[in-house]
């Protein structure tokens, strides 16, 4: 009896210690974000004195000011537009290619596929330098199209890999049936393969959406004019121009981070899949 009690107490204590450890780390993860939101609700006067997490008054007008005065309405729409268009581009282009790599036979198939995979493994630090030159020559620098095309390219390799692995495991019977019914290749890709690939397409969409929304360096190098900037670049510009307007900056940061956190919480499953799959490739 005493023995059983001993083991139970030992187990409970151990679990308690583990929970304490995990909770501490969890609080460390969340706290800076709470502090960000809290700071965004203070005023220029109180923010330097009031170190409480819960401000006495909630100044939501900071969000309005950031949105209007800081121009975050524009930047938000820019980010939204780039993210949407890039993700659509990646889904179409990479699923077409992945489908061909998985189903069709044609000369050069393996070499082309290997090329995409190699691109994932060879790091080119500072690739933004030649990209800048390239876009300059194509007259695409400081244009939305130039940025979108570059970002589609960034997402291609991983997306093709994810989709090809999925298509490889997918049974061919449905496609065969569609072919016998007289469907052409493009029709089969659109009507049969893509609907079946929904789970992996979700991974591709969420993973790339996060990537594009959070991208900074290419946008910094490509865009000169403010009206084209996405949120990430705009935040740094804002911080550089108004060094001490912390409440507005924190409101801007919250506006930038919130969509990501919401999407993450809703689509957690797909993000986790994307991360583990991405790691296996590397």
């Amino acid at each position: 009896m005493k023995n059983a009690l001993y083991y139970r107490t030992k187990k409970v204590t151990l679990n308690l210690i583990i929970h304490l450890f995990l909770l501490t780390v969890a609080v460390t993860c969340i706290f800076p974000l709470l502090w960000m939101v809290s700071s965004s609700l203070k005023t220029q006067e109180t923010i330097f004195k009031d170190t409480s997490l819960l401000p006495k008054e909630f100044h939501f007008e900071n969000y309005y000011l950031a949105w209007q005065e800081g121009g975050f309405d524009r930047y938000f729409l820019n980010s939204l537009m780039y993210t949407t268009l890039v993700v659509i581009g990646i889904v179409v282009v990479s699923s077409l290619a992945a489908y061909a790599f998985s189903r069709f036979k044609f000369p050069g198939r393996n070499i082309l596929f290997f090329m995409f995979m190699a691109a994932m493994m060879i790091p080119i630090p500072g690739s933004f330098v030649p990209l800048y030159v390239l876009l300059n020559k194509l007259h695409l620098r400081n244009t939305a199209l130039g940025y979108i095309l570059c970002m589609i390219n960034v997402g291609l390799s991983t997306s093709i890999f994810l989709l090809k692995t999925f298509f490889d495991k997918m049974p061919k019977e449905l496609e065969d049936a569609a072919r016998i019914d007289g469907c052409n290749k493009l029709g089969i890709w659109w009507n049969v393969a893509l609907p079946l690939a929904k789970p992996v397409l979700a991974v591709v969409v969420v993973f790339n959406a996060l990537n594009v929304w959070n991208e900074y360096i290419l946008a910094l190098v490509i865009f000169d004019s403010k009206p084209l900037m996405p949120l990430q670049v705009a935040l740094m510009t804002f911080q550089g121009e108004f060094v001490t307007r912390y409440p507005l900056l924190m409101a801007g940061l919250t506006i930038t981070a919130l969509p990501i956190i919401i999407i993450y919480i809703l689509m957690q499953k797909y993000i986790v899949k994307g991360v583990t799959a991405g790691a296996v490739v590397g």
Partner: protein
Amino acid sequence: MRFKSTLENYLFVLPAVTIFSIFYVIPFFWVFRYGLYEWDGIMPTMTFIGMGNFKEIFFQDRIWWYSLWNATYITIIALTLQNALAFLLAWACDRDIRMKNFYRLIFFIPPVLSEVVVGLVWQWILDGHYGLLNGWLIKLGFPNLVNNWLSDPRTALSCVAIVHCWKGFGWGFLIFLAGLQTIPRELYEAARVDGANAWHSFRNITIPLMIPVAVLVGILTVLGTMQAFVLIIAMTGGGPAYHTQVPVLRILASMRGSSRFGYACAQGISFGLILVVISFIQYRFSKKARQV
């Protein structure tokens, strides 16, 4: 008929191959070409200087070497601190405990945030005049510890490294957890039946089976951390003086600051080669570790 079918197949990969050729393959080769020139990126005149840029990088550019050391320092901290934390957390979450999913949800929040957001929030927390950290230090009765964290050369780099770990550990945690979950439970039960205690199981089952995963996480940590720089832009901009400069920041500075595109490309090649060598060594090392 046959020919038409093959042509159709090519049409499927055409968009991907076109975009990839223009935006990956061409820039890839251009880096090697421009690295041999002195060029400001705009003027049509390019001066061929052969290995001149590389000589300058290796023998004269002391800031470049300093930036490499800084990146190495951050990487060492990430390899040890961040990955040890990630593994510990994964190990704790792999057991049958409550709120497992909650912890997993929370730990991966920092990695999904952008480096700009993370950098600016932490910059505000570490602010030398009004920052929260200093405020707390005063309240807790350590006013002599108050510091200008990000503009003090002694602390700036370490602060950056720690924030980098804060942002990154959730990612290692996920991969370690996925790895731990692939270990069959029967192994642990069999060991317990044979009289092994928790430490024995951990030492003789968990660790050997996790070595491949750990090597993978290690390689990706090194490649990722050595190239991390946006977080630094947001936190310190590379300062004070050059104390938080890292190689990619130097490349950016060569390009935008001093308009030396050729030199920036040469720096990119040198750094890329270093990364390839490091990952190759780690890969060989992992093969050996797996044989033992």
